[in-house]
């Protein structure tokens, strides 16, 4: 009896069904491994590398990778590419992650309100979401980035302001289905306030899709930041970001292709990791999805 009970009620979170479903997803585990390595490299790397990212050495400019001391080569000013890459990684990953937090916050607020209130409030909010979704994201972000001061904080806010719609849609759908459940009706009968029901009863039960959406939002935010930094309207030099490293590398494509290949590979690895993790989370947390 106790054996059955012990199997039915896991005592630690890492023994739960969701976690075991997640760990069966090899790609998701690979994603976690990749992003952990990447984050560790970006945080610790600059201290471990022999060269500082700001150290200009004009005698060693355009050194190809694996030549001498510079593992990834050097850029046009002789700065070590590996060090620059990791410093840029800090900026890109931080912007991506923060933008995700902000956009998830906004999206969840809008989604919960729209899903629970329903009626014309819900309809108006969701139409607004559709309106925002009709704008190609990069057009909106570029227009805003060009008129507002392009500090990293402002870039984060702008990216978040154009990414919250996906989360809002997912949350609204989830809340709408949870609204009719018995525990919500019970809470209403007991007389709990609307705000309490929305955020203390319904929201905790909607966390699954929100977490999945959050992981995919980081991927999208990192990509969007890379796009606008590449176009010159994102993170401004001298602050390095993977996107603006690629901007500088464009003109040297024929002579020094590693300047373009390596930062782009870093972006791809980071975004792929979050996409893998998001996929694994979706399999682990979304029970209704019939995975073919």
């Amino acid at each position, binding site marked *: 009896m106790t054996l059955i009970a012990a199997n039915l009620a896991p005592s630690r979170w890492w023994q739960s069904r969701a976690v075991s479903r997640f760990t069966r997803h090899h790609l998701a585990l690979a994603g976690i491994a990749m992003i952990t390595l990447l984050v560790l490299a970006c945080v610790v790397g600059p201290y471990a590398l022999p060269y500082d990212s700001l150290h200009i050495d004009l005698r060693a400019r355009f050194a190809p990778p694996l030549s001498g001391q510079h593992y990834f080569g050097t850029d046009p000013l002789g700065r070590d590419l590996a060090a620059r890459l990791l410093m840029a990684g800090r900026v890109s990953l931080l912007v991506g992650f923060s933008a995700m937090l902000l956009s998830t916050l906004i999206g969840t607020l809008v989604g919960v309100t729209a899903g629970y209130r329903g009626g014309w409030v819900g309809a108006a909010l969701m139409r607004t979401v559709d*309106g925002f979704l009709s704008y190609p994201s990069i057009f909106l972000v570029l*227009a*805003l980035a060009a008129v507002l001061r392009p500090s990293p904080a402002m870039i984060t806010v702008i990216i978040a302001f154009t990414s919250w719609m996906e989360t809002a849609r997912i949350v609204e759908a989830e809340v709408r289905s949870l609204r009719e459940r018995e525990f919500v009706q019970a809470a209403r009968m007991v007389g709990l306030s609307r705000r309490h029901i929305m955020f203390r009863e319904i929201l905790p039960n909607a966390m699954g899709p929100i977490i999945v959406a959050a992981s995919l939002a980081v991927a999208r935010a990192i990509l969007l930041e890379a796009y606008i930094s590449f176009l010159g309207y994102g993170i401004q030099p001298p602050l390095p970001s993977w996107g603006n490293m690629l901007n500088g590398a464009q003109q040297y*494509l024929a002579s020094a292709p590693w300047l*373009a290949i390596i930062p782009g590979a870093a972006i791809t690895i980071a975004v792929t990791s979050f996409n893998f993790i998001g996929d694994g989370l979706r399999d682990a947390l979304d029970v209704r999805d019939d995975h*073919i």
Partner: protein
Amino acid sequence: MPRFLLNRFSQSIVLLVIVSIIGFTVLNLMPGGPLAQFGLDPGMTQKDIERLSEQLGLNRPLWIQYLDWAWRLIQGDWGHSYRDGSSVLTVIGRHLLATLLLMGTSTALAIAIGSWIGIRGATHRYSLFDYCATVGAMVALSVPTFWFGLIGIYIFTLKLGWVPAGNMYAIGDGSVLDYLHHLILPSLVLSLVHVAIWSRYMRTATLDALTQDFVKTARAKGVSERRILLKHVVGNALLPMITLAGVQLPSLLTGALVTETVFTWPGMGRLFLDSLGYSDYPVVMGLLIFSAILVVLGNLIADIVVAVVDPRIRLS
């Protein structure tokens, strides 16, 4: 069905109104707002600016300004470019075809390649091909389009010399072959993300269709090849594809902007960036709203086509 069409049409009108409100908000965020072009004129005094404000009606309540602006938009007066004074719609019109060409070719390629990969992955489920296709699709969705474009240029232009690196056509040579020569690499680069999306869709749709009863019937009838079966399978997958194509329009436009920049393709995306660099705000705003209208119209057309073609909706 007429009621469905009317419903859908009025939904689009509401969406267009919301789109215009969002656009109007962004417009007023532009430095100097509608008076930005005069801000640089050293001869302007504060009194002049106030007089112009009143003339242009900028001290009226915001919602009246919005209605006035929206009415002018509907009539076709989108303002004039700061660069050469021509009307914004004319400027956009000059670059529209190039972008549509790029987007259209890219979508056609994406559907063709993606469908083949997806169907093959479904019929050879869990094979090495299927696994590579699935993982490859996820990686393709994570690759920055401009990076892929730069690598494409490096391999196919700089190393192999097969295709030119930019522009829509070579000066002096306007033949169709020349256009195709310039079109192929940008289209392929733009199509990468969408190949991934279409392959994933086709895989799911094929697997769904293969479990249906009409497939069992066809097999029992002895329908010769899986090839003919694919006709049924693909036929059923076709309708949602139209809707999916409409949904992908915003990301297609985003990718087009980036691709046009890398390949100096003379389309709307490059126009947007150039105008941004010149602070040519009328064109910037015009393009912003134009792209959103394009998306809304695209989705409306997709839904109408589906409604017309789908016998279930047509006969309801």
